[in-house]
């Protein structure tokens, strides 16, 4: 057993086992991660809120249950950082927005209920792009989160706070959400594992909606085994989310040791276009060689509509957002501006409460759905979305998993793209198509640039084939050592 000083380096699997067995108290685990956060968080700003008293109270309650002889759950005493888009009863829920600055959740999201039932310790509220609208975590109304490998660079987004919390070992696990790459892209840029779950795999009940035909909740971790552990806790049917799928939840841990011998891997040529940074390309090609060396078969495949992913995504997502964000109206639970009548209460409360990126997306969506433009924009995007799905269906007829880059480039300096209307959107070009098709996809640490910035490799698989992703990631992890490197000593 390692010393308390190094406890923050232990895996979630080991921590849960040690806590359930009584070898470590939940309190000692919580204190170790709180101490770690106290040391590194001031330079990173991953958390919007981290209440040590609330953390310790949960840990003490878990210890008391064990002391009474109760059997603890699969995440016994394991801290899990939560993206501040997911409701946790009696905790703040800002979504990174001024309009929810004072909001306190009156109920738990489904995934939070699952975490509590598994004896996890909810470990703070992590920063995000406002309402998950951004790819750098710089559109948050409250703070800018820094990349732990180089604090002058962004961590990716929108779940940047969750990615950084795990990368800097302030929490062994975290939850994020994805609409167009918001877990995989920051996972890649921060050198951790991040999983975009199949649409319908995890209930969104209690997660603030951005684009309802795309949104999914998923885990961050520092190993495939830890990712599998958290996925197993949050996956499954919940009738309060009508899109929650009635699919059995497999034993994800059982897939980890299966190896990739005979696995058919497809390499989509459109994922290696001119816009992909040479170091990213070389890293992913090396990862493919590694998988081949482990016994996987590789073949070239084509996803011909990949280049249309960005326009389709930005029409579909913003159209749905323009409807979903209508609920923030100054009347029921948001901040409210002074106004002489109801009309001005709406326009001023929303005008004061939303930042520029959120306004831009509401405006684009409202425009795309407005009379005279609907067929040319929204309907057209939905049709091309069908073609993108068909591309994946055709590819998965011949292969088990697809491999490519996650983001076209490593983390760039803070401010480099957030003010450029299209540059930020183009960072999602290799991730949005998985959301549009509803499949599952994972980002796995695969190497570093010359300047020691992490690069992830993306694995994509058909709906509900998370075991295939985990099996592939675990085999790659066992053959490499990228995921064991830490940004901050």
């Amino acid at each position, binding site marked *: 057993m390692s010393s308390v000083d190094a406890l923050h380096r232990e895996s979630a699997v080991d921590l849960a086992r040690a806590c359930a067995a009584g070898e470590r108290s939940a309190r000692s685990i919580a204190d170790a991660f709180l101490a770690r956060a106290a040391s590194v968080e001031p330079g990173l700003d991953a958390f919007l809120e981290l209440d040590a008293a609330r953390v310790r109270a949960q840990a003490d309650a878990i210890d008391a249950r064990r002391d009474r002889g109760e059997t603890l759950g699969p995440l016994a005493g394991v801290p899990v950082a939560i993206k501040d888009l997911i409701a946790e009863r009696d905790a703040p829920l800002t979504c990174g927005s001024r309009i929810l600055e*004072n909001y306190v959740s*009156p109920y738990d999201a489904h995934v939070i209920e699952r975490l509590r039932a598994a004896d996890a310790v909810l470990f703070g509220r992590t920063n995000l792009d406002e309402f998950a609208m951004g790819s750098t975590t710089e559109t948050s109304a409250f703070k800018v989160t820094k990349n732990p490998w180089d604090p002058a660079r962004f961590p990716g987004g929108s779940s940047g706070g969750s990615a950084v919390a795990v990368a800097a070992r302030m929490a062994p696990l975290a939850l994020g959400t994805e609409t167009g790459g918001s877990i995989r892209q920051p996972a890649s840029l921060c050198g951790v594992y991040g999983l975009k779950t199949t649409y319908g795999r995890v209930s969104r009940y209690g997660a603030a909606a951005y684009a309802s035909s795309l949104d999914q909740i998923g885990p961050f971790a520092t190993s495939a085994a830890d990712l599998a552990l958290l996925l197993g806790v949050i996956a499954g049917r919940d009738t309060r989310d009508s899109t929650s799928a009635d699919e059995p939840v497999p034993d994800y841990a059982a897939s980890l040791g299966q190896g990739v011998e005979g696995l058919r891997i497809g390499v989509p040529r459109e994922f290696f276009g001119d816009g992909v940074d040479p170091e990213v390309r070389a890293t992913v090609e090396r990862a493919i060689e590694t998988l081949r060396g482990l016994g996987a078969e590789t073949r070239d495949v084509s996803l011909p509509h990949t280049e*249309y992913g960005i326009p389709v995504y930005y029409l579909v997502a913003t159209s749905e957002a323009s409807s979903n964000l209508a609920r923030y109206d100054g009347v029921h639970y948001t901040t409210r501006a002074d106004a002489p009548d109801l009309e001005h209460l709406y*326009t001023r409360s929303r005008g004061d409460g939303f930042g520029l990126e959120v306004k831009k997306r509401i405006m684009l969506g409202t425009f795309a759905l407005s009379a005279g433009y609907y067929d040319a924009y929204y309907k057209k995007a*939905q049709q091309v979305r069908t073609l993108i799905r068909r591309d994946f269906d055709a590819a998965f007829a011949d292969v088990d998993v697809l491999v490519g880059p996650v983001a076209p480039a490593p983390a760039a300096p803070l401010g480099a793209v957030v003010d450029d209307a299209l540059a930020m959107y183009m960072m999602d070009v290799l991730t949005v198509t998985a959301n549009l098709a509803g499949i599952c996809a994972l980002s796995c640490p695969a190497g570093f640039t010359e300047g020691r910035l992490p690069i992830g490799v993306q694995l994509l698989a058909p709906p509900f084939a998370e075991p295939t992703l985990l099996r592939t990631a675990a085999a790659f992890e066992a053959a490499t050592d990228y995921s064991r490197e830490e940004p901050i000593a």
Partner: protein
Amino acid sequence: MVDPSVVDSVAALARLDLDPAQRERLISDLGKILAHIEMLDRVDTTDVPITSHPLDATDVDAADEPIASLPVAEGLRNAPDREGDLFRVPPVLGGDG
């Protein structure tokens, strides 16, 4: 660039106040984004059905069983203004109410 009058009418539809700097940014940014979106015109979508949702599942009726809902006090917990058990708003039609 998009026509500034389009930005103004869409902002009105979306119930969004824009300050002058934001209005200028949106005129420019929405123009760039819409120009990029034009690339969809290259795709032949004749007879291609729409995808509004990635799941094959269709609607089913939930069992007609009462379940607990959020208590009124909890529902009003974050209200910016209230009167008793109601949300309070300024007059719908203007004036001093």
